[in-house]
């Protein structure tokens, strides 16, 4: 006991002296070195402890995320199944629409073959003029193919293909001064010509009826008379109404494009022809041929339509996409690009009418 007591006196003396040195000389190199050593040895305890704690603390969150991901996965699978059904419906309606058009003697617009591509290069000196994309002849892109972009869930007009190489293509943007596209305003279906302006992000819409009342914010869509673009594709919104020039027989407005050139990353090209690789796989063409009806008169078609209308009224037939029943909207390829007002289909019966 005495020995332990004596050792304790020595130890406390040594430790006290050492501590007083540490406290007295906090800035000396020895003390700082000792502190650094102590930190080097003891700090990992806190560091690793915090990491371990974070892992444990995040575990419930990760489990929750996994569960929500599983639930979402189930919902997405359901949606996918529904989409498959929708696709089948659209295809059959497109075939029907095409058949009826032929029966009525309307000219059927050539089908388009969409393909997505990435924006590969953008010249800062021609920011609003053109972009290069990573799809060319190898993917069936050809001159004057319409190029669309994506804003949220809507698809908007971007430009057209002006140069095609084996693996790339150049897109002339609508904002380029050489671009022009027939368009109409949502407020009164007034037609005009949307053109690009030199070094400006805005578009100019000319040749609008001078008596027309235009409001800022009106939407501008591609016209059915446009050769390059499918109809009813959003171009932009009226940003400003220009002062009326007394020497001109029309008025013009400034348009803010729906998709800015700077935010363009992916584009949808509406090709006139599919690529060779795609044509190698037999598509739905034989099926279309199987549905090909014999030539019938307009009166017969009208009778068939009336009969179908009566049949469709009570039944729970899913609403067809409006593009398939719109005479001006063309083929099924243009169905997703129809503006929201046109796309609203209250009931199957109305949609068919």
């Amino acid at each position, binding site marked *: 006991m005495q020995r*332990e007591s004596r050792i304790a006196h020595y130890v406390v003396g040594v430790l*006290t002296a050492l501590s007083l040195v540490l*406290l007295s000389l906090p800035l000396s190199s020895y003390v700082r070195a000792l502190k650094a050593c102590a930190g080097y040895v003891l700090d990992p305890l806190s560091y690793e402890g915090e990491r371990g704690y974070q892992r444990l603390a995040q575990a419930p969150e990760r489990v929750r995320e996994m569960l929500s991901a599983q639930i979402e996965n189930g919902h997405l699978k359901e949606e996918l199944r529904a989409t498959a059904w929708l696709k089948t419906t659209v295809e059959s309606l497109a075939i029907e629409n095409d058949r009826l058009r032929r029966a009525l003697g309307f000219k059927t617009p050539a089908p388009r073959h969409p393909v997505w591509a990435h924006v590969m290069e953008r010249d800062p000196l021609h920011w609003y003029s053109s972009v290069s994309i990573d799809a060319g002849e190898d993917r069936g892109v050809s001159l004057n193919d319409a190029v669309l972009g994506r804003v949220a869930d809507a698809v908007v007009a971007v430009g057209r293909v002006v140069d095609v190489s084996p693996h790339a293509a150049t897109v002339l943007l609508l904002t380029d001064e050489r671009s022009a596209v027939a368009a109409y305003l949502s407020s009164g279906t007034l037609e005009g010509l949307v053109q690009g302006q030199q070094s400006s992000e805005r578009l100019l819409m000319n040749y609008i009826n001078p008596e027309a009342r235009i409001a800022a914010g009106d939407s501008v869509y591609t016209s059915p008379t446009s050769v390059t673009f499918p109809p009813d594709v959003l171009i932009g919104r009226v940003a400003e109404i220009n002062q009326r020039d007394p020497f001109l027989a029309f008025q013009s407005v400034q348009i803010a494009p729906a998709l800015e050139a700077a935010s363009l990353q992916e584009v949808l090209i509406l090709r006139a022809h599919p690529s060779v690789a795609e044509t190698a796989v037999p598509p739905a063409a034989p099926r279309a041929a199987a549905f090909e009806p014999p030539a019938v008169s307009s009166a017969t078609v009208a009778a068939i339509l009336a009969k179908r209308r009566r049949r469709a009224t009570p039944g729970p037939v899913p609403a067809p996409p409006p593009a398939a029943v719109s005479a001006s909207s063309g083929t099924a390829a243009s169905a997703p690009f129809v503006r929201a007002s046109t796309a609203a289909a209250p009931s199957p019966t109305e949609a068919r009418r």
Partner: protein
Amino acid sequence: MSSLRASALFVGAMLLQWFWNTHLSYWGAAPQFLLAATVLIAARRGPVAAMLVGYVWGLYSDVLRADLFGADALLYALVGYAAGLVRRQIDLQTTAPLAVVVLLLSWLYFVLRGLLGLVFVKSFYWAGWIPVLATPPMNAVAAMIADLMWENRRMPR
């Protein structure tokens, strides 16, 4: 107690102190597990072991602070020494006296720490009313719990 278990307790006490300080302390009040454990070691294993272990634990506390490097090391060593002296007079292997000693030594710790601040940085180091009033009872409770969990109770002195 095997050396492995002793090492695990040594590191475990530091981890517990760090975790409680970081994630469970409110208004600056958190039990000083290391101080309570130092007293407990002094009661069970004698003052020398308590001083050495307490000194390293004190250095660990000092490393995490910006000022008064060495203060906690000195105070924990002194706490171990004082507990070693007290255990000759009082039976610290009983829970209640141990808790009382821990309570008193905790308050003594705050006072000495303030005085060290007065000496070395020219201002009394005041931790605040809440830590000063709340921490010692928490230390006493922690010491009681640790004492109950101690494996080799009633070691011959």
